[in-house]
Every structure is written in C-alpha cells, then in structure tokens.
C-alpha cells in the first residue's frame, strides 16, 4: 500500500469539479436520445456520405444516355432507365449532391442575411428595427412559393437565381426569429455593460448575444433547411427549378410520373418516380426528427408539464 491509496478530500473534490468535455456531453446526450433521433442522425449521415462521394458511387454518368428508354430493372441498370435512357440509379446518386448542396447553400445564405439583419435590428432598435420589421412584414404578406414563382418569371430559372430568390424570401422568417429571441437578450445587464464598455456592434453580436440565442437558431436551421429543400423540390417538380440535364429529385419525379399507370402490370416501373420522391421525404423526416429531439432537449419544455 503506497501513498496514492490514502484518502484525500481535495483530490475527490477536484475530480468532481472536472468538467465534462464537449465530446463527452454530446456522447452522453446521444446515449439518451430516443430512437427517432438516432434514426434521423443515421439517415442524415448516409445522405451526406452519398452526396459527398456521388461520382465514386454512381455506376454510370449523370447525363449518360443509353439505348433503351424506360428499361426495366436489371443488373446493368439497377433501377432501370428514364424516359430518354439515362440510368435512374446514377441520377438518384448525383441528385443527392445537387439537391442537398443547393438547399444547403440557400439555407446558409438565408441565415447570413436574415440572422445578421435580425441581430442588427434587435441591438440597434429605433428606426432601423422599424424599417426592417415593416419591410419583412410586407415581404411575408406574399406567400413565398407564389413570390418565388413571380421572381422566377422575371429572372428566369438558373441555379444561381434560384438560390438567391429562395434565400432572400426565406431570410424573412430567420429575421423574425432572430430578432424576437435577440430582443430578450439585448435588455440583459451584461449586454448593457458591454455597450457601456464601448464595445462595437459586431463584438456585441458575436460574443454577448449569439451564444445565448444559439439553440433556437440551430433548431430553426434544421427546419429552414427542410423547408427550403421542399420548396426547391416543389419548384423543380413544377419544371421551374433546377433545369436538365442536372440530375435532381424533383424533376426526376416529374419526368417519370406517367409510369405510375403501369403499377398493376409492373410495380417496379411505378417505383421509378416514387423513389426520388421518397428520397426527398425520407431526408425531411430525418431532419425533422432530429430537430424535434433537439428542441425538446433545449427548450426547457420537459416532461414535467
């Protein structure tokens, strides 16, 4: 028996005081996460993997055209070919990169615009707040899909204009949320103290307010992403979003929709338009499950009520 075995109160207290690392906290939370959240996380992981490595995973090219259109499922064309003879399975994989990438870029842009302006409005208050809030009120008075359709008529549907239009329209909602949660934080004493210290607007935004409003914003990011993702899918489905030959799930549904009528004779044929639609649905379900769990975790709205 050596000295190391003797009892030391300070050692025990010190041990208890040791903070869990961030990673350990995440692991602990994950082990308590419900099955729906696990399902969501795993699905999101798979989608991201496919989206990142699509050129390596796809057996054929994105716009490579084969001899037989509407070919049935077999070993060369795992899910058959579409109306002009492109491999559906490969397009599905390339579609992950395009659809998810564009939706992610749009959401990030809308958070940049909406979040930044929302914080600025909440902190500075006064006429800037009034002006921005009233402007957002007007923009939100037009349903966003309708507004997007009108703007697409004017600017035409290229990927760039699609991202800009939807990001701007969606940033109105981000602005509202950011402003409303930030307004509660800006009246706190520590923000006042920072202002009196003479800190700049950017510093106050980044160091004092942002960390305190992060949880609702992260949850909103998930919700906004799935909303943007659905809007882009809907626009592509209407033939006004991502244009061919770029592979995209919304337009894949549109192009092959007529094959549903053969469901009675060959169920696999009817699956050709259903699979990309299901791919869209599965990702949004997964994101929503994770957001739901996260909201439950952070909102303080726990099971006691």
């Amino acid at each position, binding site marked *: 028996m050596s000295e190391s075995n003797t009892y030391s109160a300070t050692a025990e207290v010190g041990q208890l005081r040791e903070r869990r690392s961030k990673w350990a906290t995440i692991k602990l939370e994950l082990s308590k996460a419900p099955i729906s959240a696990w399902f969501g996380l795993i699905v999101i992981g798979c989608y991201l993997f496919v989206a990142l490595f699509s050129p390596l995973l796809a057996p054929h090219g994105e716009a490579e055209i084969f001899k037989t259109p509407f070919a049935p499922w077999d070993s060369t064309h795992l899910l058959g070919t579409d109306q002009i003879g492109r491999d559906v399975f490969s397009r599905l994989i390339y579609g992950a990169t395009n659809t998810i990438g564009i939706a992610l870029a749009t959401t990030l842009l809308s958070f940049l615009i909406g979040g930044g302006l929302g914080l600025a409005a909440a902190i500075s208050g006064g006429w800037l707040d009034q002006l921005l809030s009233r402007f957002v009120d007007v923009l939100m008075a037009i349903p966003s899909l309708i507004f997007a359709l*009108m703007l697409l008529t004017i600017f035409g549907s290229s990927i760039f204009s699609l991202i800009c239009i939807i990001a701007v329209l969606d940033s109105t909602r981000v602005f509202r949320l950011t402003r409303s949660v930030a307004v509660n934080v800006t009246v706190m004493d520590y923000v006042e103290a920072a202002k009196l210290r003479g800190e700049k607007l950017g510093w106050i935004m980044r160091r004092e307010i942002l960390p305190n409003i992060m949880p609702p914003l992260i949850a909103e990011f998930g919700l906004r992403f799935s909303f943007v993702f659905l809007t882009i899918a809907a626009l592509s*489905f*209407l033939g006004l979003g991502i244009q061919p030959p770029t592979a995209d799930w919304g337009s894949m*549904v549109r192009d092959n929709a007529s094959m549903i009528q053969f469901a009675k004779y060959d169920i696999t044929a009817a699956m050709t338009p259903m699979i990309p639609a299901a791919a869209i649905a599965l990702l949004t379900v997964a994101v929503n499950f994770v957001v739901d769990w996260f909201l439950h975790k952070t909102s303080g709205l726990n099971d006691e009520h």
Partner: protein
Amino acid sequence: MHPILGTVLQRILLGIVTLFFVSLIIFSAIEFLPGDFTQAVLGQAATEETVAAFRRELGLDQPAPVRYVEWVQAVLSGDLGTSFSGRNASGIDRSRSVVDLIEPRLWNTLFLAFMAAIVAVPLALFLGITAALYRNSIYDRVVNASTLTTISFPEFFVAYLLILFMSQLWFDFPAIANINSDTPFWERVYKCILPALTMTLVIVAHMMRMTRAAIINLLASPYIEMARLKGISKSQVILRHALPNAWAPIATVIAFNLAYLVVGVVVVEVVFVYPGIGQLMVNSVTTRDIPVVQACALIFAATYIVLNLIADIIGIVTNPRLLHPR
C-alpha cells in the same frame, strides 16, 4: 370610441397599407423584365411598328407612377389586362383578357380548397386539442410521430402515393381531375376526391401540430397552474380559464392553414391536372406571361392578407389582453 374598435380599425388600416405595398411589388415585376421582352412575346419577325404599338398598349411609353395608378384603377374595376400569349409578329391579336382566363379557374380552386378545408379544419382541431390535453400519452406520441412524418412529405409525394394506391392498386378513383364548367356537382366531388384528400392530409398535419403547440403553451402559463392548484376540476380549468385565451391562437392557426391551403393547391393542381388558378400560374411562369402571373400573385397575396387580417381581428375581439401590448 371603444378601445377594441380602435385596435381593430388600426389593424384593418395596417392590412390596407400592406396590400398597397404588396401591389407595388407585384406591379414593379414588369419593370424588371429584360428590355427585349416585347420581341420574345411577339416573335423575332415583329416589325418596329408592331413592337411600338405593343409597348404603347402596355403603356410603357409613360412613366411608372402614372402606370401604377392606372393599373390599380383598372384592377379595382375588375380589369386585369390582357394575356401575352396569343400575340404574334403580324400584329394580329388573339390574346384573351386575364379576367376571362382566371375567373372559371378561380372558382375551381376555391371549390377544391373548400372541399379540403371542410374536412381538415375540424379534424385537425380535434386531434390537436386532444393531443395537447393527453400530452405524452401513447395517443399523443402516435399522432405526433405520424403528423411529423406527413409534414415532411412533399405534396407531390403524398399525391403520387395516393394515386398509386387509391387509383391504381387497390381502388379505382380518378387520378386526373379533369372537370369543366358543365360537370355536374357530384361528379365534380368524385373527381376531386384524391386532390382534396392530398391537401387534407398535408393541412391536418400542419394544423394539428400548431394547435397542439398553442394549447400546450397556454396550459403551461402560470394562471392555469394557479387554477389547478386551487383544486378546481379539469373541465372547469379548460372551459373557464384556458378556452377564452385559446381563441386567438386557434384562429391564427386556422387562418394560417387556410392561407397555406390556397398556396398548396399549386402543386396539387399540377399533379392532378386540375384546371385551377395554380396550374394557370405555373403555365404562365413557364411562358413568362407576366400579366397573368401578376394577376394570380395578386389574388393569392390578397387572400393571404385578408385571412391573416381576419385571424388577427378575431384574436383582438376575443382576447382583451391583446389590447395592452407590453
């Protein structure tokens, strides 16, 4: 003047101002068109004279404010202009007035929206309120998980799932809702079953979740807890304390979802080839037929604004606390 009346009038005024700015935005859409759009409309072979005459007809030789006033006057008197399609280089004008194009389709769209709403609204309110009251029970969890799933489905996925099962595999409901003005009422209803069902499913999910959240939010407020602690019965808590304050959020939820319904028809109409205003708008966007797009956008936006206005007014009238915002 009674303070509630004052607030309501203020809110109506705000709605009118919003409508004004929205009309300004929609009007200015034509300003941003590329300069050569007249050629795109009339065709490459259009002569100078035809182009000039077309621009004069659109009033493009006048300053924008003058045209805005004229446009608003025309819209108020029920004239939405003429469509771009049907014109050609020779100057022969076969275009139709936008009102003629829109009117029959507007009724079709309203019919479909009404059919969906009449089922969806009571169902969603019932599910939402019961789920909130029996929070965290198995019932709540099942309803919650299934609505979370449907909410994440794109409308066209729900629509095609219904077509696959209800019209191809199991039953034989019509997959194409091709109605016209002569279709008798019950046949109309029969053909609209699948599109209406699609919209009902989507709306119920949204509405049920919003109702549930609103009620839970309400039940968590301190005065409800106080009422519970006083020991009065559960039904008394709900009827006497919670309900008077619940009208406002419920009205908001209904209005929001009816507005969503009006917009959600766009995709559903395209899937089921239903001759409504949403399908017209999509076709006009494809052909860049600005007057029709403007008219449709104006109708959708006005519906949206009016529905939200009504919800706010119901909220003000039923909830005196709203009279004193912080």
